[in-house]
């Protein structure tokens, strides 16, 4: 069989084989991703949430800061969602338009979640892969540093940062970024330890490939499956961190808002019969978290070439 193939290759028709279209890894992954209906649904839902965050404030009839004085004091009877007065999602307990506030909160929460998870993935994966690949004392030293950082209560550090440098989104991002990479670096290190014992890594080393290139070319892509799943789970937890900080009054400042603030406010008003104040922000929160989980699941399957 191989002899035949060789003869064929040596003939003129050889070139026709070379022009076979290149099936790239990413294209295959994309095809596989879209075959997964849950993941596709999640992506669509997330896309809609993003559209809502981008264009919601422009569609809203009210500004998220303005109080509708007609409704103030009478929220329970007249503040429910209605098309007539332009409060599509109703108003909050101060008579502010909930549609505009939810849209604005979605912006902040998504941004915190995605930026936080992104910093965590980039820093954590690189740190963990380097520690695992180099091994020995360096590994011990790097991981003990992670242990020390983990043993410090992160909320305490975050609150200190916000108090010292003032309340701003930038400090919030830096604070969340500083603590969120710790877990992921441990996961990445553990995976790297098993990957670096595989023969293809040894083969690359024997071939004379530099260690940094080995990490980037051989270790990183094989880490991605685990890291991506973890990152998609990290986005919701970042959103929850931010909610908690905002609850303490150190996160986003009024009148700006976020999902955490809105859900908290809604929950505290629950017993007064204004359930819409809880349900609208909660709906977006839940949809987003579910979308991320499904997308993460789909991505993991899609990026694993063995699953084809």
């Amino acid at each position, binding site marked *: 069989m*191989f002899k035949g*193939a*060789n003869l064929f*290759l*040596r003939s003129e028709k*050889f070139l026709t*084989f*070379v022009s*076979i279209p*290149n*099936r790239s*890894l990413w294209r295959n992954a994309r095809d596989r991703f879209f075959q997964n209906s849950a993941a596709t649904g999640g992506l669509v839902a997330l896309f809609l949430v993003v559209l809502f965050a981008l264009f919601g404030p422009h569609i809203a009839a009210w500004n998220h800061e303005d109080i509708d004085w007609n409704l103030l004091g009478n929220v329970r009877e007249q503040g429910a969602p209605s098309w007539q007065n332009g409060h599509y999602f109703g108003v909050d307990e101060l008579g502010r338009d909930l549609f505009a506030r939810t849209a604005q909160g979605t912006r902040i929460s998504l941004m915190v979640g995605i930026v936080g998870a992104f910093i965590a993935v980039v820093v954590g994966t690189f740190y963990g892969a380097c520690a695992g690949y180099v091994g020995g004392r360096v590994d011990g030293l790097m991981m003990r540093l992670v242990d020390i950082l983990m043993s410090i209560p992160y909320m305490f550090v975050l609150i200190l940062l916000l108090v010292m440098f003032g309340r701003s989104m930038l400090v919030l991002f830096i604070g969340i970024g500083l603590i969120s990479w710790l877990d992921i670096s441990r996961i990445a290190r553990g995976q790297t330890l098993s990957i670096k014992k*595989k*023969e*293809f890594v*040894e*083969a*690359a*080393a*024997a*071939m*004379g*490939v*530099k260690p940094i*290139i080995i990490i980037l*070319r*051989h270790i990183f*892509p*094989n880490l991605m499956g685990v890291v991506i799943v973890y990152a998609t789970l990290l986005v919701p937890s970042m959103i929850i961190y931010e909610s908690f900080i905002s609850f303490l009054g150190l996160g986003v400042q009024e009148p700006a808002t976020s999902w955490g603030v809105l859900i908290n406010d809604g929950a505290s008003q629950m017993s007064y019969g204004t359930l819409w104040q809880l349900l609208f922000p909660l709906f977006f929160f839940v949809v987003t978290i579910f979308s991320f989980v499904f997308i993460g699941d789909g991505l993991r399957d899609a990026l694993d*070439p*063995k699953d084809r």
Partner: protein
Amino acid sequence: MTAGLQIENISVIFRVRRRHAWPWRPPSLLCAVSNISVSLLEGETLGIVGESGSGKSTLAKAIVGIVRTSTGAIVWRGQNLSQMSAHERRASAKDVQMVFQDPLAALNPRMTIGDIIEEPLRTHCPRMKRNERQEHILEMLERVGLHASHINRYPHEFSGGQCQRAAIARALVLKPKLLICDEAVSALDVSVRAQIINLLTSLQRELGLSMIFIAHDLSVVQHVSDRIAVMYLGHLIEEGPSREVVQEPRHPYTQALIESIPSPDPSAGGPRRQKLLRGEIPSPLNPPSGCVFRTRCIIARQACAHEMPPMTPISDQRRVACPYSVEDAL
């Protein structure tokens, strides 16, 4: 023919931490390769045989530089590889390439066959143009008997034999001078094994390669090698031209190994002789005193417990590390 590779007294010692030991206790030393000297002429094939745990793979890894040597020198064409800086060492990898045991594990599952074969070119010839590299890859694919259309496939889409062909293509794309095959055919079934061995020997002839062929199966090694070296528990115990070693083994261990080759036709060979090898290979963490083989040797005597006998020449090309078999020969 000139000497290509000279290995002079190399030892590889690992520091092993025992489990459940106190952290302040010193790690025990594991001597995976002890004091081996062997040389390889250009264009020659050296077969290395021995049981599992005899240090064959460690020796191979020491030659390509994945494992650090503790003592001794590896001299390749007059350059001492073991004294080079990491940077020089990587550059020298162009000449010395290796094929691994498990074909599927040796290929990155996230790279296509084309990318895998391209990697050495990207590493050592970064200036080469993309289409030029592509030509080299296609030429290599054809040489090892793969199809040009396989270039965009992933390793898991191939059989073990095809993966091993791809691994050989990767090892040979830089036109190295020395190829080390570490159990390159052990994971393959018999018919595929024959194909790969034929491929290796024909490529060796075409490209003028020197080769170190490692296997635990003497029948395979004898087929491809010009010379054979036998290892046991990190020591070299016999070395010589492959036909002489197989037909007139001197060391009792080599005799036992040859005895254990299964006969293709069991009815033809007459009654099998008694098994010469008993028990398991001792732990390298706790090797026997004196001659490492004495615990399983049928001609072991009191004197064997004192020191490891050195490799003693018994003819121009043969060396044996057993004084009693040397006496027999003289």
